């Protein structure tokens, strides 16, 4: 085992997949000469050249669509969108084309491509650069949406996304790029076959008092919360959704059946959000097991402010999630730490 950053896990896995398969190419703004806004593609242009590492003009609709067209002919493009906010420029190509081509033409041509893109607030980037709009894509049949939270997951899930024959939106997070975690020694080898199973959530920490559900950065935060509350003798079970579409409902419903209550944390607005879908699924799948209403911890419903105190207040935190957990447990009379 070695300990690396989420960023390095992505970069090295991307490189390994390019070494493994000649059909894999990367495309995006500033990914070549500039080596990526967040340096995920560092060194790739030097190693693979401009044929396989394509700097694109600032034309998200054009180059995302071009990646889809190239995928229809069997290439496996990995597109980087500088942030998920810019995916809005390409949303017609993602939703009306990438997601539809396999079904709309009766299964004749698949679209084996990956769109890698980071979301996330907390960097003082203001209203248009701090969103998490993966919800838009998680809503769409025909797309697969992955949201890894650790370096090991990032590596295994990126490998899965590239090898999968469907369009995959691969959600990264600005707040995760520098986070560290253990990976297998051979994680960067081209012949590594540690491929994650798309469509599976995971219980990343076992507990008995309450289920805490998150994904991407919030799955990391959820583990921090569980760690902290353990010191107060509260046993939190953490579920990392990992795959937002398909959604593995059974894993979190089974957990709630065991613990009897749930808190969902998400780096996004609450109303109509992914947490709403999780909560609805819990009431349908574990109604008789619930000892308290399902609680959601989510971003304040405002365009994200720039000023640090306002931004911090708008985002879910270890503290706010801990409070929601204690209030939920208190409501069922279990115990309050």
């Amino acid at each position, binding site marked *: 085992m070695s300990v690396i950053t989420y960023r390095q896990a992505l970069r090295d896995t991307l490189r390994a997949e390019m070494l493994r398969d000649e059909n894999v190419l990367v495309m995006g703004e500033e990914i070549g000469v500039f080596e990526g806004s967040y340096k995920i593609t560092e060194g790739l242009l030097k190693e693979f050249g401009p044929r396989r590492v394509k700097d694109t003009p600032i034309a998200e609709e054009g180059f995302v669509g*071009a990646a889809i*067209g190239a995928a229809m*002919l069997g290439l496996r493009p990995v597109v980087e969108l500088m942030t998920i906010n810019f995916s809005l420029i390409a949303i*017609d190509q993602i939703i009306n*084309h990438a997601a539809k081509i396999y*079904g709309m033409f009766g299964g*004749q041509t698949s679209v084996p491509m990956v769109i890698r893109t980071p979301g996330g607030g907390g960097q003082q980037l203001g209203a248009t650069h701090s969103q998490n709009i993966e919800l838009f894509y998680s809503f769409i049949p*025909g797309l697969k949406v992955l949201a890894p939270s650790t370096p090991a997951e990032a590596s295994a899930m990126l490998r899965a996304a590239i090898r*999968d024959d469907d369009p995959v939106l691969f959600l990264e997070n600005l707040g995760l790029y520098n986070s560290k975690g253990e990976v297998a020694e051979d994680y960067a080898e081209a012949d590594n076959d540690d491929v994650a199973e798309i469509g599976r959530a995971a219980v990343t920490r076992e507990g008995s008092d309450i289920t805490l559900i998150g994904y991407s950065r919030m799955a990391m935060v959820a583990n921090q919360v569980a760690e902290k509350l353990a010191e107060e003798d509260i046993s939190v079970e953490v579920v990392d959704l990992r795959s937002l579409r398909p959604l593995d409902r059974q894993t979190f419903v089974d957990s709630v059946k065991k613990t009897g209550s749930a808190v969902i944390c998400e780096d996004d607005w609450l109303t109509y959000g992914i947490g709403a879908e999780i909560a609805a699924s819990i009431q349908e799948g574990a109604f008789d097991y619930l000892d308290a209403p399902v609680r959601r911890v989510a971003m304040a419903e405002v365009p994200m402010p720039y000023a640090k105190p306002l931004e911090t207040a708008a985002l879910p935190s270890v503290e706010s999630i801990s409070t929601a957990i204690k209030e939920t447990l208190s409501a069922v009379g279990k115990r309050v730490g």
Partner: protein
Amino acid sequence: MADTAKPKGGARSSGSRRRSRKDTSPSLSNESPDTLLDYYRRMLFVRRFEERTAQAYTQARIGGYCHLNLGEEATVVGLMTALKETDYLFTNYRDHGYAIEKGMDPKRVMAELYGRSDGVSRGWGGSMHMYDTESRMLGGYGIVGGQLPLATGAALAVAYRGGDEVVMCQMGDGTTNIGAWHESLNIAKLWDLPIVFVVINNFTGMGTTVEMSSAEPELYKRGSAFRIEGERVDGRDVLAVRDAATRLVERAREEQTPFLLEAWSYRQKGHSVVDPAKYRTDEQRETARSKENDPIALFDAKLTKAGILNDEIRDEIAAAVKTEVTAAADFAEQSPKPDVSTLFDYTYATPVPNESRRMPADPVFAE
């Protein structure tokens, strides 16, 4: 000022076509009569197929949106004659004629229109979404401009592999104003891609004229911002379209760079089958439907004058076309409707756990 924007005769747009009435069409002297009659037959086939489609639509055998190639037969046949079998085609939603001309079985095209399981897209696409991997017609697309980035990407894949195929990307005149147009032409030129963008200018996007929507209404010039050479051709003339398209397709193949072709002709009827085109003036309607603008009537007259076509051959071709179109409709009628059990067969190419197969009223958690 609004009045000045209104065309008077279907199209008032400036351009070389109005400059002179002298016949600039390619001469027939170097053409084989069999080839010419083949073009004639194929154009007539598209015409009759579309008329049969309109009939089936009004009989509610066909649903959804339905856009016809009536008036564009010379363009369809001329363009498709310029492509090799291995070349790729992307089109907009006015795609029936292209589907047939690129090599799809008309029976299966009609079955798609009927929403049957023998349809080229297995009944999943309908009128706007004809697709066939084998004949390399990679889709009719219903979103204006949607096919441009895709076609550009297909050309990227060809170039990536060093192939010698060319991609043709057809669209309507209104498409030249959408962002995807600008982004795709820019990328195609930047990356030296073998693609020919073809604008079918029928002077109206639904009811909005080119002059009302395009600051530069001479559409073939609109590639110049990207240093893409453009040509305009009389889309009523199958030989002129064939020659212009062949020239640009072969240059794209040879020079590995994009080109732009504008083919103008008149949309004989409304935007779609259900559109009575009431926004047209009498003069515009007359222009769009007149024999002098009808590609088939024009070609018929030309071949007749040259002694290649006569009543006997004309009747023979008409009868053969009619038989084949009727056979297509019969085939579609007989083709089974898709079974509801196949509803979840084409959401994903790679099956994964937890894919939803829930029918509308099913509980999320089945027993």
